[in-house]
């Protein structure tokens, strides 16, 4: 992995972590979700810094270029996060439907009185 790529990756990830922190401070992301992103960022920094070690594991899996292996891990993590996001959206959708129905029925009730 070239030094230039390492620097770009580390800088981007650090900036991202600062951004997540700022959002967390202003209550614009819940602690639960910010934790996921801090963890992901941390894993990415570790993988970038210890790319020699990653290279050994990459070789073990038969992947020649270490950065490809890191990308593979990142994509894997992202897919998992997206899956749980869609589960969360489904749950929120159900809750919104429930609220809309109850509000509509309550409005109808107060009108009758």
């Amino acid at each position: 992995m070239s030094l230039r790529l390492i620097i770009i990756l580390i800088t981007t990830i650090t900036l991202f972590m600062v951004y997540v922190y700022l959002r967390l401070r202003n209550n614009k992301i819940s602690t639960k979700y910010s934790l996921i992103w801090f963890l992901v960022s941390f894993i990415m920094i570790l993988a970038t810094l210890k790319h020699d070690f990653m290279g050994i594991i990459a070789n073990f899996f038969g992947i020649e270029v270490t950065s490809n292996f890191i990308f593979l891990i990142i994509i894997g993590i992202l897919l998992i996060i997206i899956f749980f996001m869609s589960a969360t959206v489904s749950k929120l959708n159900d809750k919104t439907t429930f609220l809309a129905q109850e509000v509509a029925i309550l409005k109808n009730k107060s009108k009758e009185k």
Partner: protein
Amino acid sequence: MKALVIIPAFNEEENIVKTVNSLINIKISNVKLDYIIINDGSNDNTLDVIKKNKLKFIDLPFNLGIGGAVQTGYKYALYKNYDIAIQFDGDGQHNPSYIESLIKELNNGCDLVIGSRYIENNDTFKSTKYRRMGKNILSFLIKIFTSAKITDPTSGFRACNKKIIKKFADNYPSDYPEPDTLVSILKDKYIVKEISVEMNERAGGTSSITPIKAIYYMIKVSFSIIITAISKREK
């Protein structure tokens, strides 16, 4: 006995008054027949028309889709302690004179009664080749998984008793819910019966199902039937 006719309405400004007028003239002995329109976030003048004609309605704050709208009606029926709930389309497709026969079957011990277009092979309801094909696939799936013969699984003209009202108020799929709910009810060993009805062509407005949606519908409903069928019973 108190019965509630649930009329889901999405953009039905042309039909809704006609639909309600055809309903309120229906008199059934020993049954007090009420109706409620569920305005499902219509973006035409449906709500104005309803208010101007002083019809009874529940106004959803935004569009929930047919399942969410109908479920609102079932919840209302549950809260108001109705004995019977009847689903009735707001677009004038359903003929209210059949409501009496639906209720009669409920009194004979059925839990859910469906108004079917296809029971006597009468070709009064003009249906396209593809619509019949889709309907046959769904009937076949229901037959495999529940061994019940349902000729019109997508019919939105249905009546049910208190037990089913409770069940639907608690849990109802959001879009294209008819075949799905049938499977779950049949699996729970409730008694379902079909009676033959004639349906009119849509009096006005446009149908909600386009060809692309129809294919998506078939895939989704078939998938949903299979998942419901192989899942464990809730009770």
